[in-house]
């Protein structure tokens, strides 16, 4: 009886059982996150963002250091980090600095260093217009006359930003950076913080264990190794049973 308990087969059974129990939780987590990551586009996981303050704190997402804001008619155009906002509505992400914003008769124009972004008065993107040279500022005189100031020259467009002509020193009201009102500033900061970590990033970090730092990666790696051991021990046990039953059947015949 004592020998049977100490036999290598019994040890293998025990090892298989406890290894299975130990890695089951991690494997279920890996399976769920793996399935979700396979459907990133279908479930829009790359365009939906983590809003939980606990998780955002865990990621170390802080308030943005600098906010640039401009008044365009009755609307506020702001840039926090690389994200631009129309009032509190997220518009586009780019690496260029917002240098101004104006309101014209048909649309609102956001001026970035090398791009103009046309939006409607409800924040719908109309067109992105790339610029050949970086601009310093944007200004407007009549409802549809838009000026841009480059390093050495000023250009004007009278046809809805389709073409530009060089002009000399016009009297233009250039867009000026304006401080946001306190309530809007607070609301924007909160909106911005909740628009940084997409669910896809969170699931990837959970899947790889990176969410918990080096320890998390070690646990996921160890689970992978244990899964290999588990598979081999399972095959071994199955093979033993199969051979044993065959031998038993032969003896009966």
């Amino acid at each position, binding site marked *: 009886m004592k020998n049977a308990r100490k036999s290598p087969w019994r040890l293998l059974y025990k090892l298989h059982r406890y290894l299975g129990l130990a890695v089951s939780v991690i494997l279920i987590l890996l399976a769920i996150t793996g399935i979700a990551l396979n459907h990133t586009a279908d479930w829009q996981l*790359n365009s939906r963002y983590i809003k939980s303050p606990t998780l955002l704190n865990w990621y170390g997402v802080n308030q943005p250091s600098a906010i640039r804001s401009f008044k365009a008619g009755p609307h506020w155009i702001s840039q926090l980090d690389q994200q631009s906002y129309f009032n509190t509505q997220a518009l586009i992400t780019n690496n260029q600095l917002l240098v101004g914003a104006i309101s014209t008769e048909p649309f609102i124009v956001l001026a970035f260093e090398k791009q103009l972004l046309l939006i*409607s008065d409800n924040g719908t*993107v*109309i067109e992105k217009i790339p610029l*050949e040279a970086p601009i310093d500022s944007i200004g407007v005189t009549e409802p549809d006359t838009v000026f841009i100031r480059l390093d050495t020259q000023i250009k004007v467009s009278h046809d809805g930003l*389709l*073409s530009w002509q060089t002009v000399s020193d016009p009297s233009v009201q250039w867009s000026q950076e304006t401080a946001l009102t306190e309530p809007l500033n607070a609301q924007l900061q909160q909106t911005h913080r909740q628009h940084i970590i997409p669910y896809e990033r969170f699931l990837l970090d959970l899947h790889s264990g990176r969410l918990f730092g080096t320890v998390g990666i070690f646990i996921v790696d160890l689970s992978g190794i244990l899964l290999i051991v588990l598979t081999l021990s399972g095959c071994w046990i199955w093979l033993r049973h199969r051979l044993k039953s065959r031998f038993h059947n032969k003896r009966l015949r």
Partner: protein
Amino acid sequence: MKSLKLFLVATLLWTPLLSAEQYLSEASFVANAFKTPPRPKSLWLTPTIKPIVQQLLQHPPTFLRTRYWQEQQRTVWILEEIGKNEPITVGVIIDNHHIVQLQVLAFRESRGWEVKHSFFTDQFITSTLSTEQTLSQSIDGISGATLSVNALTKIAQLALFFDQTISK
């Protein structure tokens, strides 16, 4: 040695003019398409056009107006479509409703850049748009660049559709 130095200086001076991912500026592409580039025109996505654009792109369009350049039967379109995460900027020259040139102007994705080469883009030359809004000729894909290939195919279809729209 002197010429090498000159070359390095010239390279350093020219580099900032084009961003890291931009192969050709939009102005240069338009200038190459015409002897004298015409003034740009704009096409608005009206409620009639928008559903077809959405069908071609397989998602709602992210713009309401696009600019184009036209001289007689020749039109030039500069359009953007996202491959996986970042937009790919493509210039398309259409003559008499046939694509005569399709060129990647800016590629910002980390993978799938093979689509910028002419061995791939030349497949679009002479393509037209069928009544089912598909390209008249099949486009061979590139392994590992499926999303970029799809983006360029959609842009080709869209440019041909816009070209048909303005000629109606």
